[in-house]
């Protein structure tokens, strides 16, 4: 096989792997390729409706725009870039730590620089493809209503996808050099989570501190932002100009992204082999004196302590939890600002907190109930399954109480009634999320946490609707109590339907 043919063959192999990984994620590991493809097409078609609602009013936008619009558009593009960067960092980390084929590749006579170049390109294309998939309905609507100049949007999406992948690879390689392989996994995962949410949250924090609102657009559309914004011909606005149909700038951006990716491939691909070797040679973490944790107490206490210890030592979960906590930062700041008693917007905090509690509880409940790495051990332990389940649910409740109690206590000083409603709603949202996980439990490894939402679509939707429903109920209880009754009943109905169709019930 010639060198080119060999590279092409390996590229095909990489894309097949990427496709199957994606398919497994979409179908929860079940072989339903046709259904997944049809589902995807239906989803893409349906996405045109919200896309129409969001972008139809902007079809006549042309450069030059007023400063506020330019800032909002640029910020939106930057947000997309940050999200793609987050996704790409996650992909790169997975390539280093989770692929089972590295030993095979490293021991093969293939030229490793070429192999890793293709792998970098595959990451870039995967990230860009996902971005294209999600942005296509929006661009379609703009092209249909506003003309072909909006086709430039595809180029912009591709450019930001390629540049985000290049940046992700550079960031990960930099982390390897600076902090070593063992810490890179943790730090990269946290960085990935923080980048994904950080930009939106930062905007909200600024909005809360400056304008007393949770709206992230408050700062972007303010006079202050317009005053400090660069001149209209600045490079900063190039992505916005390109997305508005400036073909020349779009091509320049695309070319720059390709060059950036090419440089990253040329510089970092040869070092990948060393990096992979250093990951493999990474010594195991040493932990002194922790066994004491299990030495006293009942069997349920041993189970609870085990769950807490595993949660604390799970860097991936740490990053996921951190993201949930980051979302709590703006409402916490809002709370702090509202102590003066001048703002009525404090009511908004309750649904945010309840929703965060429901989502966090869902994740924790999955980890404790389904994500059991030694199911045989626990199943053969001399205690009834009901007590095992109870111990695991207690872990979720304790964790949620630890995280949210300080916020509820702080809320008590501002409004005891709101604090009481919030506390009750947190408990109900947590119990609902745990119940959904119990009804839909499917034994899995903790490392499969990322795929938990694909193992049961019904469970995912039930969990999300329950969190949203209880958040809305809590907000309505504080403003329109009669409506809260309706919302509460609807949420209970959602849970009842989920229970009825769950495998536990069937």
């Amino acid at each position: 096989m010639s060198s080119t043919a060999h590279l092409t063959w390996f590229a095909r192999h990489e894309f097949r792997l990427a496709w199957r990984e994606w398919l497994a994620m979409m179908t929860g590991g079940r072989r339903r390729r046709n259904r997944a493809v049809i589902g995807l097409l239906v989803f893409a078609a349906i996405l045109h409706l919200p896309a129409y609602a969001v972008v139809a009013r902007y079809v006549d936008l042309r450069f030059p725009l007023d400063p506020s619009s330019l800032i909002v558009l640029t910020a939106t593009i930057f947000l997309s870039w940050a999200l793609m960067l987050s996704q790409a960092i996650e992909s790169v980390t997975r390539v280093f730590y989770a692929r089972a084929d590295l030993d095979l590749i490293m021991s093969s006579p293939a030229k490793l620089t070429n192999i890793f170049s293709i792998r970098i390109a595959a990451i870039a294309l995967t990230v860009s493809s996902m971005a294209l998939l999600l942005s296509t309905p929006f661009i379609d609507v703009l092209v249909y209503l506003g003309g072909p100049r909006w086709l430039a949007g595809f180029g912009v999406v591709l450019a930001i996808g390629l540049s985000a992948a290049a940046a992700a690879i550079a960031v990960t390689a930099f982390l390897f050099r600076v902090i070593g392989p063992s810490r890179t996994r943790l730090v990269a995962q946290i960085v990935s989570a923080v980048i994904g949410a950080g930009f939106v949250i930062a905007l909200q924090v600024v909005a809360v501190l400056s304008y007393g609102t949770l709206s992230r657009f408050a700062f972007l559309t303010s006079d202050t932002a317009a005053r400090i914004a660069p001149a209209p011909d600045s490079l900063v606005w190039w992505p916005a100009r390109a997305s508005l149909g400036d073909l020349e700038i779009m091509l320049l951006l695309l070319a720059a992204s390709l060059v950036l990716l090419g440089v990253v491939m040329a510089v970092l691909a040869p070092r990948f082999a060393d990096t992979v070797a250093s990951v493999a040679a990474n010594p195991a973490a040493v932990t002194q004196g922790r066994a004491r944790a299990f030495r006293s107490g009942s069997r349920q206490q041993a189970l609870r302590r085990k769950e807490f210890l595993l949660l604390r030592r799970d860097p991936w979960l740490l990053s996921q939890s951190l993201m949930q906590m980051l979302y709590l930062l703006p409402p916490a700041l809002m709370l702090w600002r509202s102590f003066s008693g001048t703002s009525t917007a404090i009511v908004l905090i309750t649904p945010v907190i309840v929703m965060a509690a429901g989502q966090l509880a869902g994740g924790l409940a999955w980890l404790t109930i389904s994500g059991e790495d030694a199911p045989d051990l626990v199943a053969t332990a001399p205690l009834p399954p009901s007590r095992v389940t109870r111990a695991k649910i207690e872990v979720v409740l304790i964790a949620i109480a630890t995280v949210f109690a300080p916020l509820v206590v702080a809320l008590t000083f501002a409004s005891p009634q709101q604090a009481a409603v919030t506390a009750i709603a947190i408990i109900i949202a947590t119990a609902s999320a745990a119940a959904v996980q119990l009804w839909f439990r499917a034994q899995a490894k903790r490392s499969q946490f990322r795929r938990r939402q694909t193992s049961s679509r019904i469970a995912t939707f039930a969990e999300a609707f329950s969190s949203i429903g209880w958040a809305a109920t809590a907000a309505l209880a504080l403003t329109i109590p009669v409506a809260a009754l309706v919302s509460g009943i609807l949420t209970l109905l959602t849970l009842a339907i989920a229970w009825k169709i769950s495998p536990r019930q069937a």
Partner: protein
Amino acid sequence: MTSQLYALALRGLTKRFDRPAVDALDLTIRVGEFYALLGPNGAGKTTTLRMVAGLLRPDAGSVSILGIDALADPVAAKQIMAWVSDEPMIYDKLTPLEYLEFVAGLWGIDPRTSEKSARNLLISLGLEPHLNERCEGFSKGMRQKVALAGALVHDPRLIILDEPLTGLDALSARHVKGLLQERVRTGCTVIMTTHILEVAERMADRIGVIASGRLIAEGTLAELREQNGRNDTTLEDMFIALVDTEAAAA
């Protein structure tokens, strides 16, 4: 003879998936016996043992463990039993010592005795240099040893092992075999499945051969030879002959 004298008594044990995996199996294993359960792939060995360990609910039949009805009182049965699967399932984020302490906690063992016992077990299995390392970097053999130590830390009276020697190096395998024989000497009963027939030949007091979910032969090595009509044959030859005959009959 009452069932209290048996470490394990199975009567009419049945489990069906798409086809019968275990077919009205009767099996009796005496206290203090080292019993090797052999059979080709898919014969129903693991299914049988998983039902005994309480990991699978049988469709029919009974399971008695040292006189305890394991289906009626699974907690009491589990208290005196240990299960080690062929795929060691341990917690990556715990150290071996922590894992054993956790197992001891689950079985409600006095912490003062479990700590010493855990340490000694791990040392005897050659894991002393790794006592405080998290299991995430361990090889399959090391993980298997940790899982085995976990099964022994609560001093079970019946130990069920599914392919315990898979992935172990020669020295580790010898450690494990020594440890199991030591337990048998102290009155513990060991039931083990293995595809390494030499191990069964050397270690087992009695051997059972299972095929298509049914026990097709059972006895000491000498008894099996007698049943086979040849005194000089190896267990491997007898096993292959038995399985071939069964397959031909099916």
